[in-house]
């Protein structure tokens, strides 16, 4: 014990008392004769204060304290003993010798001392462990059935705490616990230490908390036995339920919900139980029932009942209730915004709620529910209160608007107006930045809004106090301005900056100007040259340098000049990975310079596709889960595959990898051999990569191969690379290669029947190896078929105006199918189509609304052509799902292939 650890605290202002002093005082006070109850209680309070401030004692000191405190058990004063029990409870966490106080505690548990008996019971649970709990069995049993509810609660809780270490013992009072759930226990009126200003008249006659504790314990004792659990639920629910405590009812609802989640077929039978609690006098019960129902798979009518309850809770006077209700609705709105439209009126009322979290939830929920019909009105409502709220909150709103703008591109007019008004308001950098970001996104993803948005941005930089924003906007003007119909309009705005602003802005304005000159319009070029020549006299060297450089570039007519206007977009994650590899290499690697051409260049469309995904998926709510964009992950994965494959000489000869499919599982996850596969497409070949996992512990596999039989003659097997030895509990990879038809067309579609073939050998558990003498025996294992579909030749791509691009594609094919399968919902069908075709859903069309739907998909084939698919779906419970498919493609035969593939 170093002196340092007992450094004297400055205790002038009622801070935590000094540890050493308290320790010494406690020992003195507790060992004094006669013991002064008042003084000791004060000392204990000080000790607890230390413990609750985060101080701890070394185990030896804790034990010393423990011994001296245990002397106080002798004292008659129950108010002292009550605090002693609390101190023992806390010290039992750090001291090892807790068992020795057991007998003293037992004495109080046995007594009929009204004040400290419950405290004694609860402390007992801390000092007992699995081996000593037997001694307390009779005491606990008696306490559980005690007619004093506080004693019963204490005993039930203690049993609950002890359950993990003493299940068998606690089980012996299952019947008593069962009794406690339904019993009526009234608070005795004479046991209380009543405080001044507070008479006994304010005491309720019963609070039924013990029901909550008994129910919780009973569930743990019975949760392995579903029949008795169901029986218990039947008994306790309904009109004549003996349950009076709302907390106990909440607990019951959770049990019901849990059964329903685990066994969806029971949902409909259990629903009436839950629905009955949607109208209850306690908010917490109503809330729990509604929460439980919305998490279940129920019919729309049943769902609506829960929503109606939440709707009522939205106008509750208690902040917490409103918060809870709006939070549930917000969660629903992320997946099924259409289901909560009924609450819009109430939600609008909450927009001005004094609790910021509530108003944020209300706004974001409202914006999610926005359909193309009510977006305009919604924006008007929000515009009204924007003035009253803080910047931080405004940013949340702007982010939601941004998402909405991408969802409903046709509503860009109203959104632009709204954002423009905000842009003119006062606000800090973060707020202005979020608006500018929103406008940037609109320009990129909603082409129709481009001119309007650019104009607003031009106006904004006329009077912008943030250099950083001006620079970004000028850069954007340089990028987008030349593409507009009247580029000259922007030149004036940009040149104004050159005249009026600081050097940082001036230099970026110079670059932006120079981009207009590369348009190819001679008149503009000449004008720009004049403007740039003036900049050569600028006071700042950076501005002069840039102007001189730009003039040179413009005058040069070099082809590189064009790449200055539209620079190449290298795939950054791949570039990063490659550079890291390059730098990590030895001297030999540095002999050859880094090859930038090995990095895939992403077209603007691909880049947009990735970002569009990110932007529309991003949830502007605090609870969001960070997830890497799917598309980005795919491109990284693709990179990994291509690296792995190029290391195999046979495969390296195939040329570059064009496309890899997602991982397809060919077996259940729990089988003896788990097989997954990835399809790799090369210029003339199809390579199937089978990843096999041997989950058995005592069998080793030899010569593992997959016999894959294509159903079409177009594919011919070239070679197969088996796994020589697959040890117990290990993984391996088999490659099977085929030549594939080079012509685009329905020939490409095929199905492969797969059989896993191998020789099994038993493993000696001692040596962990198979007996070399053992020849093993040949065996086969049937796995599922693998389909090669159109999706294997298409990569998702983004296109801003789907309809016009579709119309421009030359080759068309359409068909009507019945996709059958009446039970599966439209949502699943859409999800399946998106994955199987491996195309990007556009215009938010992956979100299904109602029983009919139009899915718009876009992608690029591995040959480079565009392909668009529009699928009109109608769902009918009797007939299943009908699909009218229209495919348009740039290349011949692609459309036919896609149509054939969907069927």
């Amino acid at each position: 014990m170093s002196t340092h650890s007992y450094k004297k605290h400055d205790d002038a202002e009622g801070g935590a008392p000094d540890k050493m002093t308290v320790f010494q005082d406690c020992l003195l006070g507790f060992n004094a004769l006669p013991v002064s109850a008042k003084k000791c209680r004060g000392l204990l309070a000080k000790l607890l204060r230390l413990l609750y401030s985060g101080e701890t004692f070394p185990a030896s000191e804790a034990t010393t304290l423990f011994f001296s405190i245990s002397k106080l058990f002798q004292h008659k004063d129950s108010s002292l003993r009550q605090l002693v029990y609390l101190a023992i409870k806390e010290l039992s966490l750090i001291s090892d010798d807790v068992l020795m106080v057991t007998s003293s505690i037992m004495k109080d548990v046995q007594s009929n001392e009204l004040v400290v008996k419950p405290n004694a019971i609860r402390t007992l649970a801390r000092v007992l462990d699995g081996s000593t709990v037997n001694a307390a069995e009779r005491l606990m049993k008696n306490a559980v059935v005690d007619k004093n509810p506080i004693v019963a609660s204490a005993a039930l809780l203690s049993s609950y705490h002890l359950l993990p270490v003493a299940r068998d013992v606690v089980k012996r009072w299952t019947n008593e616990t069962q009794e406690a759930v339904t019993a009526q226990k009234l608070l005795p009126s004479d046991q209380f230490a009543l405080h001044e200003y507070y008479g006994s008249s304010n005491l309720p006659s019963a609070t039924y908390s013990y029901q909550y504790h008994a129910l919780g314990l009973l569930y743990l004792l019975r949760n392995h036995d579903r029949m008795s659990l169901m029986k218990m639920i039947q008994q306790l629910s309904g009109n004549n339920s003996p349950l009076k405590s709302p907390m106990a009812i909440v607990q019951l609802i959770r049990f019901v919900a849990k059964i329903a989640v685990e066994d969806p077929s029971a949902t409909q039978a259990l629903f009436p139980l839950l629905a009955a609690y949607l109208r209850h006098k306690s908010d917490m019960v109503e809330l729990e029932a509604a929460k439980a129902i919305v998490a279940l798979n129920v019919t729309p009518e049943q769902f609506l009942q829960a929503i109606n309850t939440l709707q009522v809770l939205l106008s509750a006077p208690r902040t917490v209730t409103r918060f809870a209700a709006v939070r549930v609705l917000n969660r629903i709105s992320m997946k099924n915004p259409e289901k909560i439209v009924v609450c819009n009126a109430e939600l609008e009322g909450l927009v001005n709620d004094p609790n910021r979290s509530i108003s944020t939830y209300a706004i974001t929920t409202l914006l999610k529910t926005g359909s193309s019909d009510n977006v305009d009105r919604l924006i008007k409502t929000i515009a009204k209160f924007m003035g009253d709220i803080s910047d931080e909150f405004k940013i949340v709103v702007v982010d939601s608007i941004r998402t909405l703008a991408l969802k409903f591109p046709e509503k860009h007019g109203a959104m632009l107006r709204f954002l423009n008004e905000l842009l003119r308001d006062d606000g800090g950098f973060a707020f202005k930045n979020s608006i500018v970001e929103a406008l940037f996104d609109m320009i990129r993803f909603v082409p129709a809004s481009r001119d309007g948005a650019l104009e607003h941005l031009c106006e904004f930089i006329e009077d912008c106090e943030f250099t950083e924003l001006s620079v970004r906007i000028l850069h954007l003007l340089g990028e987008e301005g030349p593409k507009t119909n009247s580029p000259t309009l922007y030149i004036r705005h940009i040149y104004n900056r050159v005249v009026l602003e600081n050097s940082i802005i001036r230099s970026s304005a110079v670059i932006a100007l120079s981009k207009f000159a590369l348009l190819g319009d001679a008149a503009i070029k000449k004008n720009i040259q004049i403007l740039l020549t003036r900049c050569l006299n600028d006071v700042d060297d950076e501005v002069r340098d840039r102007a001189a450089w730009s003039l040179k570039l413009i005058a040069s007519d070099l082809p590189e000049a064009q790449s200055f206007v539209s620079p190449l977009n290298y795939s950054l994650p791949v570039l990063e990975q490659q550079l890291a590899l390059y730098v990590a290499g030895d001297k030999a690697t540095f002999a050859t310079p880094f090859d930038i051409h090995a990095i895939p260049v992403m077209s603007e469309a691909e880049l947009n596709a990735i970002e569009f995904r990110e932007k529309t998926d991003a949830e502007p709510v605090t609870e969001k889960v960070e997830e890497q964009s799917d598309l980005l992950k795919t491109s990284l994965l693709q990179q990994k595959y291509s690296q792995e494959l190029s290391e195999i000489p046979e495969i390296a000869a195939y040329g570059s990898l064009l496309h890899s499919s997602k991982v397809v599982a060919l077996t259940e996850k729990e089988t003896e051999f788990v097989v997954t596969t990835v399809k790799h497409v090369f210029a003339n070949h199809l390579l199937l990569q089978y990843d096999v996992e041997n989950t058995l512990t005592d069998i080793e596999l030899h010569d593992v191969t997959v016999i894959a039989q294509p159903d079409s003659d177009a594919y011919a097997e070239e070679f197969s690379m088996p796994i020589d030895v697959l040890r117990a509990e290990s993984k391996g990879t088999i490659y099977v290669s085929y030549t594939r038809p080079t012509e685009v067309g329905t020939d490409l579609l095929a199905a492969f029947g797969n059989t896993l073939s191998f020789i099994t050998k038993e493993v000696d558990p001692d040596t962990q190896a198979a007996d070399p003498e053992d020849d093993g025996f040949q065996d086969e294992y049937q796995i599922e078929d693998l389909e090669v579909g159109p999706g294997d030749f298409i990569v998702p791509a983004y296109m801003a105006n789907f309809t016009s691009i579709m119309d421009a594609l030359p080759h068309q094919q359409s068909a009507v199918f019945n996709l059958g399968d009446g039970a599966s919902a439209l949502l699943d069908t859409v999800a399946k189509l998106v994955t199987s075709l491996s195309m990007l859903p556009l215009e938010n069309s992956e979100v299904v609304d109602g029983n009919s739907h139009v899915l718009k998909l876009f992608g690029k084939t591995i040959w480079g052509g565009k392909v668009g698919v529009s699928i009109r779906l109608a769902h009918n419970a009797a007939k299943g799902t009908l699909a009218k498919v229209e495919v348009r493609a740039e290349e011949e035969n692609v459309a036919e292939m896609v149509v054939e593939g969907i069927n």
Partner: protein
Amino acid sequence: MSLNTSLYTVKAVVILDNEAKRLYAKYFKPPHSAEDATASPFQTLKSQQSFETALFKKTHKINSDIILFDNHIVLYKEFADVVIYLVGDLNENEVLLMSCFSGLVEAFNILLKNALDKKSITENYDMVVLAIDETIDDGIILETDSAVIASRVTGPPSADAINLAKIDLSEKGLFSAFNFARAKIGERLQQL
């Protein structure tokens, strides 16, 4: 939404003063849980304190009863120079936590005679910690009725000088005197 069928609902009770200094902090964990304690984000004193400081920053002078903070539901109430927090799991029933929290705060009000401030909390620390112990037992809500909670908390013992004079006027003494008298009167009445 994960379903919590356990009774362990309250993660922590914290009382801070107006400079974010701890007056009381108890992070609950089941006493005999087999589960590895390292899973809790509040395992070390340091992580607890950084949680408290950040929470205080977020809630100071903004009285809105409830916020979501660091993947927890936090109910809080600010008084003159103290803030009381109750921390629960993200998926817990908010109203259930609130009924526990308001029961506790109201019990404080009864015990401290409506003077809920730093001074009276430190002076009556024994009653404050007993009240919390009678409301929440290692994360399980024990009672939510403020009157019942307050009535379970004993006041400090009376002065010891009288004890030395062999007149037992402590709480227990009074109880036993009262019980004795009641038993006697009961007997008499039955005899009549």
